[in-house]
Each structure stands twice: as C-alpha cells, then as structure tokens.
C-alpha cells in the first residue's frame, strides 16, 4: 500500500467534505447546537439516575461521568466519520454507485469508510475530552504514562469494535439491500453503553459482553480511567478489537464477490 498516496487522498477527502459542509452554514450551526444540547441532556439524565442513593452498579456519579465522556467521544467519532460514510454504503449499493468506487485504483473499504466527514462531530469529540479531563480532576486520577497509554489503547479498541460492527451490518446490504433498521438498533445499543455494565442484570451483561460487545466499547476504557481494570480485560479488548477488524475486512472482500450492481 502506497501510504503517501493514501495520505494525499485523505487530505482531499477532508478538503472536499469540509467544503461541502460549509456550503450549508445553517445546517452546520444547528448540528453544533444539537451536539451541545445532547451532552447537557445526557448529563442531566445521569444525574437523575444517581439522585436517590448516589450509586448505580457500584459506580458513583463522578465515576459514571467517565463513561459519559467516553461515550461522547465515541458518539462524536460516529457522527464525524461512521454516520456520513457507513450509512452511504446502503445508498451506494441500492443505487449502484458503488461501481465508481470499485473501479478506482484505491482500497474500496478505505474509500467508503473515510470519504466524508461531518465537522460538527468534532465538537462532540472535544466536549468528550473536556468531560474526561474534568473527571480526571474530580476523581483525582493520577496522570501517568502507563495510564495515558492504556487509555489510548482501550479507546482505540472501542473505536475499532464500533466501526467493525457498523461496517459489518452495512456490508450485509449487498445481500439484503436495505439495512437501515439494523444500524438504528446498533446506535440504540451504543446509547445503552452510557451506563456502567454492572447496572444491568446478569443476563443482559452476558449479552452486552458477548453478542454486542458494549462492555468493551465503554466500560473497560472507563475502568482503566479509574484504575479498576485488570490486565486480562485490556488484553481481551485488544484481541476482540483485532478479531472484529480483521473479520469485517474479510467479510467485505467476501461480500464483494456477490455484488451484482444495480440495474441501469
């Protein structure tokens, strides 16, 4: 793979996406306001849950805010990259414009996963980091190199898992043509990921750990922040993320063999 070429193309993707978004100033402003209001609403909701005894699933409100921070970053990444690109896959396949992508001398997964960005999602990412730094202060977390490295690893793994799940569902469009609902279900599960895993019943915890790996997406990175995570859990998250990423890649290449292109 020619890295220089891919960087050059990504620079162009950024440029054209920003230019397209800036064509509609009001829409961008509304998106930014929505991101701020959504964060305020989520924190308010969390505070209501913690109002009675101050603990949910063994987590204090200040600790649960870390999960909210990580969720906000992930949601920001979802809104910046996944939502504008991966929902387009369905459109590409339904309308047959995937033809143009497949005939370009560039990796098709790279092209359809990163072609667009929604700049208003950046604000959410920034708000998420701001909330995390706030949590670090109120939870009196010691900022060490190992803490930063482990946080970065677990958050990166969360992004990979989320991307792979979303990409996997979008890929099935090649057979099922319409998969909007499945993507909406995934988003709803991610919404559940704002709460500590321990706050759910045992059976739901099993489901959220094995079938829909929410535990790996938000809870494990949050445990790293609080110094509660064990190394086997981090290692397991790295393995799960790698398996998801590799499987989604293989699945895409396999699915393309069944692509029949829309009729003209």
């Amino acid at each position, binding site marked *: 793979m020619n890295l220089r070429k891919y960087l050059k193309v990504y*620079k162009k993707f950024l440029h054209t996406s920003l230019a397209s978004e800036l064509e509609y100033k009001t829409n961008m402003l509304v998106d930014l306001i929505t991101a701020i209001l959504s964060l305020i609403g989520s924190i308010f909701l969390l505070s209501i849950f913690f109002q009675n005894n101050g603990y949910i699933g063994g987590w204090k409100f200040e600790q649960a805010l870390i999960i909210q921070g990580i969720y906000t970053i992930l949601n920001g990444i979802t809104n910046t990259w996944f939502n504008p690109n991966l929902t387009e896959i369905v459109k590409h396949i339904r309308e047959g*414009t995937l033809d143009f992508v497949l005939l370009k001398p*560039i990796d098709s997964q790279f092209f359809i996963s990163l072609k667009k960005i929604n700049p208003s999602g950046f604000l959410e990412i920034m708000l998420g980091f701001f909330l995390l730094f706030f949590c670090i202060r109120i939870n009196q977390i010691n900022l060490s190199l190992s803490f930063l490295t482990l946080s970065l690893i677990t958050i990166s793994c969360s992004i990979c898992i989320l991307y792979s799940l979303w990409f996997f569902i979008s890929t099935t469009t090649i057979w099922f043509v319409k998969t909007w609902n499945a993507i909406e279900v995934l988003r709803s599960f991610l919404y559940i990921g704002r709460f500590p895993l321990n706050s759910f019943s045992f059976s739901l915890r099993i489901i959220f750990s094995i079938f829909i790996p929410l535990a790996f997406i938000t809870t494990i990175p949050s445990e790293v922040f609080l110094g509660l995570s064990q190394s086997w859990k981090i290692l397991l998250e790295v393995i799960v993320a790698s398996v998801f990423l590799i499987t989604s890649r293989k699945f895409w290449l396999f699915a393309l063999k069944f692509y*029949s292109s829309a009729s003209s």
Partner: protein
Amino acid sequence: MVQNIIDVRNLSKSFDISSKEPGLKGTIKHFFRRQTKSLKVIKDISFEIKEGEIVGFLGANGAGKTTILKMLCGLIYPSEGSILVSGYLPFRRKENFLKNITLIMGQKQQLIWDLPPIESFYLNASIYDLDKFEAKKRIKKLSEMLEIDKELFIPVRKLSLGQRMKSELLAALIHEPNILFLDEPTLGLDINAQRNLRKFLQKYNNETNATICLTSHYMKDITSLCKRVICVHEGEISYDGKLDLLLKKLSPVKEILIVCRSEEDANKLENSGFTVENKIKNEITIKIKNNSITSSLKTILNNFDIEDLFINEPPIDEVIGKILTKKEYDI
C-alpha cells in the same frame, strides 16, 4: 498487426432473481418464503475487440448489454467462461488494470453534488496518483476539448444535464485510460449535447487510439461512432460484424421520390412496373433494390420527363428496431 485488447470466451452469467405474486397474500408469502430462481442472463458468448476499435453493443432493454459491460470492467464476476481485458482478469481489479480503464454511465454520477466539478477532478487525480501540475494540464486539455472550461468552478447542482455529463466524462478520463466502457452516455441529453459528446469521443479515439465499448439506445451514437456492432438478444450474440453490412442486409431497398414535369408523366411512371409506395399529383415515391439503383435510375431518366429526384435511406431507428427483436442474422 493490431492486437486484441479484449478477449471473451464462452462467457455466461446467472443471477438469482426473486419473484412475487400480486396482492397482500403474495406480499406475506414473499416475506416469509421468498422464491428465487436462477436466471441465465448471458449465455455462452465469445468475441474479441481490437485495440483502438469502437464497438457498439445493441439490444433491447434487458438483453444483457450492461451486464456484459460490467463483467468486462470487473464489476461483476462471470459465472462461467473467461475474460481477458488488456491482459488482466477484470474481476481481480488489479491496480494497473483499473488505471487503464474507465466506466461512464449516463444515469449515474460520481461528481460531488455540492461542489464545482474541479474539486472532483482533483480528488480523482489524487486517487490516480497524478501530481498537481500533471492534473492541471490534463484538466485544461480535456476541458478545452469538451468546451466546459467556464463551468469548472460552478457547483455541480447548478449545471445543466449536458454540462454535468461532460464533467462526468472529464472526471472519468483524467487518468487517460485506454479502454472506455460507456453505458448510454448520451441518455437524456439534447441533440446538440449528444452531437458534441459524439464529436469528443471520436476525437479522443483518434488522438489516443483508445478502445471504446458503447451501449446506447440513440442510434445516431452507434451509427456515427461504431463501425462494428455486437447485437445482443436475450443474453446471446445475434450478430457481430460491420454495421454497414448489417444495415444493407436489413434494408435492401431505397425510397426514391420523383417529381415529374406533369401528372401525365407520373401516371405513365406508375404503370411502368416499379414498386410504387405513394403518389400525389406529379410526385411519386417508388422503392428500388439497392443492387439495381443505378440501372433503374438510368431507365427513369431516359424515358420520363423528370423535374427533380430524391433518394432516401430508410429511417435507421426502424432498421435497428428489427435487430432488437431477432435472434440471429446470417450475413
């Protein structure tokens, strides 16, 4: 000797198609127990195309022209048989193969809707690994050839269909491919835009010796660009050869409109043994076989007092229409 750039041997393609009975009952049945059947849309076809050739694929809707084109450019996998394009197996979509080809579809677009076309051109240039200087040079050259240099900076959504199609062409040709697959490139364009596009394609072919495979329902596209046509009927090749030979075979007669000096002369001509198509006062239309045009006209001019004379080719659409419904041609 000119080499074959496309070599297709015993190619077949089947698709699984689901069918649904009408009404609510049919819809529920279709939802729970979908019935699919395998449909062979391309049936054991073989042909070669030489470098620099412009070949038209003719056929009715659903005959399989677009499926052939999509297999040639590597978008869909063949079910049986082999395809070699420029020495590559298309469905492997190797980088060097993709740098050599382009696909243009009249009904689909790749330009970024909200931005001027120049942004899409530079994006494509980076994908094809062209440096900025080279990209600028090619955009300038192609935009001049296509006469769209003024529209480069206007958002795509504000361009007319003709200007958009020309921009699509530029986006698809920025990497200077030597094989062009064109699927109804003039669809929906007005007569002038169609003519300009045809002129451009002919010029591009002359200048670069690019091979062009074209499907179109506008017969003018085929007759003005393609010397050779491949007729596809229900997934099979019904004719592969020169277009003029096919036209001669399908339209063996010409219509001659003769204006006589008087009605009396027209009456005499009517009764002289020619096949009369129509007669209004001193104007008479007769049909003459292609191989006896010269001798028949000599007879008419020598024996009758003629004021004027027009030779009409039968309408091309009518002739080609016959091709679309026939299974085989023995030329």
